[in-house]
């Protein structure tokens, strides 16, 4: 007897649903191994995490707040992923969003204060779009590999942000960070910690769903992603669409950065490169590039982060345990996706 992997005759629809769920459970089991190795009772640890993420109104609010930049970055990279353009530069594009809004808040003082917020958000979007558009253009024009360019540009953006908040734009008081934005220009809060970025993120989900599934442009992206040659034969310009998709992808990641900065830190400071852009990649993958599914995935991953903070307090485990658990979520998912088009069969050796 042996096991073999066989190609299915059609794509399995039920598997497309079961796999993300099953891989989430498997990742919890893998995480349990890691926790057990750290001499912690996994059940207790997961209990503490769940409690830390959803156990009180304040914790719930914190989880939602944490999920918003994740959701937006997931939506952003998801657009590029539809074209099989591997934008792993969301982190840098997010940082540019934060730089953009800080620039407006700090230096565009000729504007009336109520205008600072909307214009800051737009400038953040534009800078994120440019940061993503450059690799898009390089790819479209000269087939420069996007995984390298987008990854490297992250470090450029992060380095620049550091230079700005430690040096050039540093507030006169304190040893790092730019001056705080005027309070009237903060993103208003809705309920406790939850801020109006929630509306922006949910509106984005709806807009993107419409754009990707209901418009001619979404149809073209679908064609290019699934068969670029055939798309070209049908008159669809691949170069143009790569650049447009990357501009949009970067704009959304940039917006995530400017929204989050205007809502939480209210200035550019340490921690701006919190890894939302990288986690966004996991979200895009796990949601199958579906904007609505991204909401659930983003909340789940945010809960792992906020839960891990509780883990640190309650179980005396390092904070980085959260990152370990997040990383573990993706591996079973990627391994499991093979079962959408394949199935496992048990072969019994028969004799004639």
């Amino acid at each position, binding site marked *: 007897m042996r096991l073999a992997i066989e190609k299915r005759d*059609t794509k399995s629809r039920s598997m497309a649903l079961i796999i993300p769920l099953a891989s989430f459970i498997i990742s919890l089991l893998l995480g349990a191994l890691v926790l057990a190795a750290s001499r912690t009772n996994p059940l207790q640890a997961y209990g503490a995490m769940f409690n830390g993420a959803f156990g009180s109104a304040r914790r719930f609010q914190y989880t939602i707040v944490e999920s918003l930049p994740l959701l937006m970055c997931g939506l952003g990279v998801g657009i590029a992923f539809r074209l099989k353009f591997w934008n792993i530069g969301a982190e840098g594009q997010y940082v540019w969003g934060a730089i953009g809004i800080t620039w407006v808040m700090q230096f565009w003082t000729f504007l009336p204060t109520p205008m600072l917020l909307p214009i800051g958000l737009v400038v953040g979007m534009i800078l994120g779009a440019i940061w993503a558009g450059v690799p898009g253009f390089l790819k479209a024009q000269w087939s420069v590999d996007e995984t390298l360019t987008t990854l490297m540009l992250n470090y450029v953006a992060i380095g620049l942000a550091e230079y700005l908040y430690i040096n050039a734009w540093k507030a006169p008081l304190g040893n790092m960070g730019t001056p705080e934005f005027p309070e009237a220009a903060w993103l208003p809060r809705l309920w406790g910690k939850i801020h109006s970025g929630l509306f922006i993120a949910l509106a984005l989900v709806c807009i993107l769903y419409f754009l990707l599934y209901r*418009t*001619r442009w979404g149809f073209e992206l679908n064609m290019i992603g699934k068969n670029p040659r*055939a*798309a070209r*034969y049908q008159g669809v310009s691949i170069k143009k669409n790569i650049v447009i998709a990357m501009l949009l992808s970067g704009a959304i990641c940039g917006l995530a950065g400017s929204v989050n900065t205007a809502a939480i830190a209210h200035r550019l400071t340490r921690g701006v490169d919190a890894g939302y852009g990288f986690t966004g990649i996991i979200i895009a993958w796990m949601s199958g590039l579906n904007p609505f599914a991204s909401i659930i995935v983003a909340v789940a991953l945010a809960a792992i982060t906020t839960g891990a903070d509780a883990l640190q307090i309650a179980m005396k485990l390092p904070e980085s345990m959260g990152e370990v658990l997040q990383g573990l979520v993706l591996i079973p998912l990627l391994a499991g996706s093979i079962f959408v088009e394949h199935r496992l069969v048990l072969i019994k050796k028969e004799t*004639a």
Partner: protein
Amino acid sequence: MNQQTEQTPVVRMEHITKHFPGVLANDDVSLELYPGQVLALLGENGAGKSTLMNMLVGLYRPDSGSIFIRGELAEIHSPQDSMALGIGMIHQEFMLVGNMTVAENIVLGLKELPFIPQIDEIRKRIKELSARYGLQVDPDAVIHDLSVGEQQRVEILKLVYRGADILILDEPTAVLTPGESRDLNKIIQKMLSEGKSAIFITHKMDEVITFSHKVQVLRRGKTVNTCDTASVTPKDLANMMVGRDVLFSLDRCPYHPGGVRLQVDHVTVDNPLGSRPFLDDVSLEVHRGEILGIAGVAGNGQTQLTEAITGLIPISSGKVYIDGKEMTNATPLQIIRSGVSHIPADRGANGVVGDMSVGDNLAMKKYRTNEISHGVVIKRSFLRAFADKLINAFTIKTPTQDTCVKFLSGGNIQKTILAREIDSCGGILIAVYPSRGLDVGATETVRQNLILQRDQGNAVLLVSEELDELQMVADRIAVMFEGKIMGIKSVKETNTEELGMMMAGTEDRRRDA
């Protein structure tokens, strides 16, 4: 070869049934192949020939039924399993790595290959095998540089090297010149004399007659008949295959060409890698109400000609006019908007998006218009109605319009493309090998549609390798050789011999208008 009585068959497939969603691909099919024998599997597209063979090589599993190899029940779950049983298949698309040498390709993936291969020994063995079967190939040649016929020989060598003695060939002559086909026949005869055996997938009658000992005809997944080749005529076979009498000639209106719609004027397309250009000073005109055929052995610039016209590859010099307007190096979209439809070569790779639905594939030109969209928004209800209309009009066999197009048979994929391109055609239709690999029924549909377009006053440019097809369908024929037009002839004033000479590179001195 009537050794059946005393020998066990090398391959016996019994009561094989295989379902795909909405399609019964094989329905209780049985098959026997004896050593030293060639069995031809004849049938239309979607008749289930390839499905049956794919189960023999482990790409699919039968829903029910059993396979016996040399009398023993075999469980074949992967191509590796089938290779271990000595079964090898040569697919229509070759599985070769273009920038590696013949020898490297032959040993690629061999399990017993040591970490550091003894390349001299491999080369020696390849030379031995080449000499034994008359497969002349240089082991050090790079695949890129070989002709299609030579590449096919490499594929055969690959199987022989691995010790295959049951060969499955999927339409092996579709890409070969008549001379190469004769060579292939010699190679196969030599193999048979050593006790190897072969199964031939085909839908060409003359091929059945020249190559096979026994022929099994499939129709809609069922065996219609199995008989000795010597006892049947091509006409019998054609009738068995389609289940009705085949039209061998097509009705058409008399030839009254109108004004020029498409003009190609001294067009040259450089080949950045090769020594001679893809297209070398090509000029031609296609008129309203005519079909201009492009004849020639595949690879003499025909696809580049159509890609240059449709804006897919850059033109180095010369001009293209559509309805008198210069369209040289316009974008593919501009060309489409000026009324050009294109049925491309290699339909799976260029013509459809396999992972999208039949409906979406049908809408891939018209989604830009009010018939499907309101401004930039696609109206799903419009799209569905539009797709249903075309599925009915072109009798596309598909379970639903939501089925991924890659699950359809080749003939139905081509009908999907045909439907989309004809529906969106603005007066100029370019068709490249439109009937390649299609069965009699689907070929007839394609040809009738091309003629219908011509009769409606459209200009049709038809690239084909089959002179019969061109002589049946076209009004004028241009022959291409090494990127040049060797001559353009009116179908009525030329003959197969003259065209054949031009295809082989003899220039026609009396170029006519």
